[in-house]
């Protein structure tokens, strides 16, 4: 077995891994290694050929490949090592990585610091338990996206899309532009899950109907999908009898959510938050395993790659520092609690010496609210939605006011008088 060492080993070469490797390098880590299972860097961005990436970071609207290329170019200018087509099979709590590729066979990589940047995967039909037959023609939206944008196949001619997440909306437009038809987008929630901009530019532009409070209750067809039955749902998401409607189609795309890919992490003993499905981390984005950091969609599913880059830079910086200093720790830790109308907050635990950027999602849409971060800082928001992640930074100055051993982040709805004030 080939034995390698690294100061910082980054698992995953998507947007998170690229940004983390770059900052680890900048921090002074001598040998930085990116391990990627695909045959190129860039991760999911390479198949997201639509534009709209990078507004925060680069102040312009880039396509996914353009955003990736900028980071790939930066990595190429450094001596960061990249192992492509390399699959990590195991990570140990002592930060030994076992990986395999066809050139080197099995490898054992001992790393002083590890950054988990494996991203996420799509929820599948199995996770939804849709009844009916099991014909060909049911794809996750991201798989269809890869077929169309990388491999050059159109998965079908007439599609129904279940779920109005951004990938589903984007694929509705892509199908239409390529001459296929999208009969309907079906969403169980009372509002579109994706960005309004995508509802306008991907559905309304092409007169594609969006059925809210509805779902697919049956898939028809023997060898290939021949149609689906959709129905409206009640408050508890149960189909309402009498509202069934048959739609003829040869393809069903599922855009029903993403799950962080944490098999490697949990195997190494990394503790996972049941809400985010990602590791529990502190303000340096370190997990409960010393020297193992996490960022990007493996930590929690983001909606903007700009935020992924920012988060990954933080993880990379601390991972680089950890590799140099080995085993630093903070004295006082404070737990971060998700309060009223907050679904989750990352990081889960903070020290008080460094500025902390909190990423959070709300549970329900609301308007005219204040996000209160443990009484340290409150930020007014005109409109909040579960699909739009919020980020709020607190400074060490503000953190001086922490008294107990936890802080609660919560949404406070303003009364009418306060709104006008």
């Amino acid at each position, binding site marked *: 077995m080939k034995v390698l060492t690294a100061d910082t080993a980054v698992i995953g070469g998507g947007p998170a891994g690229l940004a983390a490797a770059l900052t680890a390098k900048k921090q002074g880590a001598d040998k930085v290694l990116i391990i990627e299972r695909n*045959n*190129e860097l860039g991760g999911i961005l*390479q198949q997201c*050929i*639509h*534009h709209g990436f990078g507004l925060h970071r680069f102040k312009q*609207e880039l*396509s*996914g*490949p*353009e955003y*990736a*290329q900028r980071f790939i170019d930066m990595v190429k200018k450094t001596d960061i090592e990249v192992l492509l087509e390399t699959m990590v099979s195991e990570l140990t709590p002592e930060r030994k990585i076992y990986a395999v590729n066809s050139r080197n066979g099995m490898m054992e990589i001992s790393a002083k610091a590890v950054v988990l940047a494996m991203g996420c995967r799509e929820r599948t039909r199995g996770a939804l338990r849709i009844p009916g037959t099991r014909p060909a023609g049911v794809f996750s939206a991201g798989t269809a996206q890869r077929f*169309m*944008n*990388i*491999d*050059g196949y159109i998965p079908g001619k007439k599609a129904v899309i279940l779920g109005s997440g951004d990938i589903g909306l984007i694929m509705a437009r892509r199908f239409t*532009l*390529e001459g296929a038809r999208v009969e309907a987008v079906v969403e169980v929630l009372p509002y579109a899950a994706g*960005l*309004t*901009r995508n509802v*306008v*530019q991907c559905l309304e*532009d092409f007169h594609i109907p969006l059925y809210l409070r509805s779902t697919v209750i049956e898939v028809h067809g023997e060898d290939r999908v021949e149609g689906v039955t959709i129905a409206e749902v009640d408050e508890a998401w149960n189909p309402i009898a009498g509202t069934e409607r048959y739609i003829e189609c040869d393809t069903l795309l599922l855009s029903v959510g993403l799950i962080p890919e944490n098999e490697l992490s949990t195997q190494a003993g990394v503790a996972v938050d049941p809400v985010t499905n990602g590791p529990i981390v502190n303000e340096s984005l370190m997990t409960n395993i010393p020297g193992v950091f996490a960022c990007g969609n493996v930590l929690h599913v983001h909606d903007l790659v700009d935020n992924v880059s920012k988060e990954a830079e933080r993880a990379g910086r601390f991972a680089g520092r950890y590799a140099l200093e080995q085993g630093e720790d903070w004295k006082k830790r404070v737990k971060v609690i998700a309060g009223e109308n907050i679904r989750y907050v990352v990081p889960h635990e903070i020290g008080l010496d460094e500025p902390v950027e909190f990423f959070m999602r709300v549970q329900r849409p609301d308007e005219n609210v204040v996000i209160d971060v443990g009484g340290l800082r409150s930020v007014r928001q*005109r*409109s909040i*939605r579960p699909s*739009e992640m919020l980020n709020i930074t607190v400074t060490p100055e503000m953190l001086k006011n922490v008294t107990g051993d936890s802080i609660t982040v919560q949404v406070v709805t303003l009364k009418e008088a306060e709104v006008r004030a």
Partner: protein
Amino acid sequence: MHKTIICTVCPLSCNVFLELGDNDEIVSLTGNRCPRGKAYAAKEHTAPERTLTTTVKARGGIHPLLPVRTDKPIPKEMLLEAVQAVSDLEVEGPIRMGQVLIEDFLGTGSNLVASRDL
């Protein structure tokens, strides 16, 4: 006549209400929470534009396709025609991100450029 346009410039997604005159001209525009919404809604009413992103056949790369885009938005009603126009285009590497593949694409004043290296 009235018309509602959802501003998509930022996530606030304001509903912008347009009151239109006899010749479809904008008489009043309300509901936007910032000036960007006014400019967007006016443009969206008179001459809506979109950036086109698609793929073309490619030789000499690791994939059979190269993602491409227009470097400026083009008239919205030209999107389908524009995709048709590049369906037979085949390019050969090496190509650098941003390289112009078709200048003044369909007379729109926008160029069709490569979205990544090939």
